[in-house]
């Protein structure tokens, strides 16, 4: 039994709306909670970046431990296929606006593990990536510079449209789902219903649907409210 969701995005009629938007965007760029998923070696350069020597907190970036609260998903290095599944689950649980940063060359193109049967090569096939920080591994300064770039992107999103890559996941869900299915098999599904969300936020486009989403619908278990019983 799937709930029909009828809420549509409201028209913005407030004349001050864009002022609020700008202010919120400014705050978003100033305060970033990051979830650093230690998928690989790059994770070792994050503690120096976070702690006393480079101190990320002075830029308003602090670590958070659950995906629900985080704004940035830091993928720190190669993603093995087993990890990639968890990364996608994590990504889908995060609340938008959300950003993905791929650290290390391995997230760009497989890096030095390009021969490996166990690692996924291109991260942006499976989720939209905002900023890549190449290097093996990038120094803390490079990580900080990448985060600064992300902050600039968020602040200038209105002009340049670089800070809203997360919308792409809803808009072109079929593409991402197709790549995921190719790697994990056709019965792949996540607990989050992306299509319903895309409808809810008014982000669905033609590319949200396709043959892959049809395949998903075939075996997707229906949403059932959890039973609560007290014995």
């Amino acid at each position, binding site marked *: 039994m799937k709930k029909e969701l009828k809420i549509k995005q409201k028209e913005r009629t407030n004349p001050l709306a864009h002022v609020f938007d700008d202010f919120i965007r400014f705050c978003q760029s*100033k*305060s970033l909670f990051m979830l650093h998923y230690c998928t690989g070696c790059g994770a070792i350069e994050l503690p120096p970046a976070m702690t006393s020597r480079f101190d990320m*907190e*002075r830029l308003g970036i602090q670590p958070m*431990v*659950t995906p*629900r609260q985080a704004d940035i998903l830091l993928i720190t290095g190669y993603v093995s296929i087993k990890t990639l599944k968890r990364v996608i689950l994590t990504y889908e649980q995060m*609340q*938008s606006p959300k950003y993905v940063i791929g650290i290390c060359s391995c997230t760009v193109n497989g890096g030095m593990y390009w021969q490996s049967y166990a690692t996924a090569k291109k991260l942006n096939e499976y989720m939209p990536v905002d900023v890549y920080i190449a290097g093996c591994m990038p120094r803390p300064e490079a990580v900080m510079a990448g985060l600064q770039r992300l902050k600039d992107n968020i602040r200038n999103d209105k002009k340049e449209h670089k800070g809203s890559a997360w919308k792409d996941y809803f808009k072109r869900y079929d593409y991402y789902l197709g790549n995921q299915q190719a790697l994990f098999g056709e019965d792949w599904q996540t607990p989050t219903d992306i299509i319903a969300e895309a409808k809810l*936020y008014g982000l669905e486009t033609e590319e949200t649907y396709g043959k892959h989403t049809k395949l998903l619908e075939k075996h997707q278990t229906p949403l059932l409210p959890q039973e609560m019983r007290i014995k």
Partner: protein
Amino acid sequence: MNALHLMAELIFMPLIAFIVGMMMVLMMRKISARLQRRIGPPFFQPLYDIVKLYGKDTQISHGLIHDIGIIMAVGGYIGAEILLPVPGMEGIAAKGGVITLSYFLMIPSLGMALGVGQCANPNGSIGISRALTAMLAYDIPFILVVFGAAWHYQSTSLIGMIEYQQVHQWGIVEMPLLAIAGLFALQGMLGKQPFEIYIAPAEIATGPMVEMSGKYMGGLFVMQTFQLYTAGVLYASLFLGGGTSFLTLLPKAFLVVALPMSIAFMFPRYKTEDVIRILWKWPVMLGLISLAFIL
């Protein structure tokens, strides 16, 4: 006129609490940063965090109770703020008194328990059960402290207590043992190390906050500002003579908050049962001895 005046106070008291609380959060983060040999966040960071969390495009709700829980958590503190007299504004403090206030201070924990229970995340459930256990642990010394203070000042109204201290000596001079017991309870109430059992990221991945996102997390951040403010001002009013103006009250409040924070970043956390044992042993003992003197 009177009703209008009261209305204005009811709005301004939580607002002041919010702004001062944010500065206290900033101070807390700055203290931790200095102890950890780094610079720390910029001045407006707490504001940015809260605005950002409220400005999230999407939130996930786990049902009505989840929403109500957060409203209770924040609302409980807003209620507490208008019961907490500050210089120039009394709100409904004269009608409520410190007993009502201590009841109000329990509402946020219960509200969180409701909200988190709805999330169906085992980490959250463990966290909230620990939070309630911690509440049980620090409430006994807290009630003792409140009772002792009320008996000593012969008043259950905070206004009366402050007036007494302005005339006579500060509470901390007259009942030092009770004041120390109060500091213990304060540490437990703020949930800081060594009594930080319900946040515990390494054990239960931040316990009650595990499923909170967007506005809900923002609610918790707001709650934290109120929590620090309440703790600071309440302790200052009970033992440090309150203040005739904000210039005298706020330094005391900041000092009171800074003390547990400086201790917190130097200690690990106890286990749950150790927290109960320690909070029921030392502050309660101190409080009882102090009560014996007072009575």
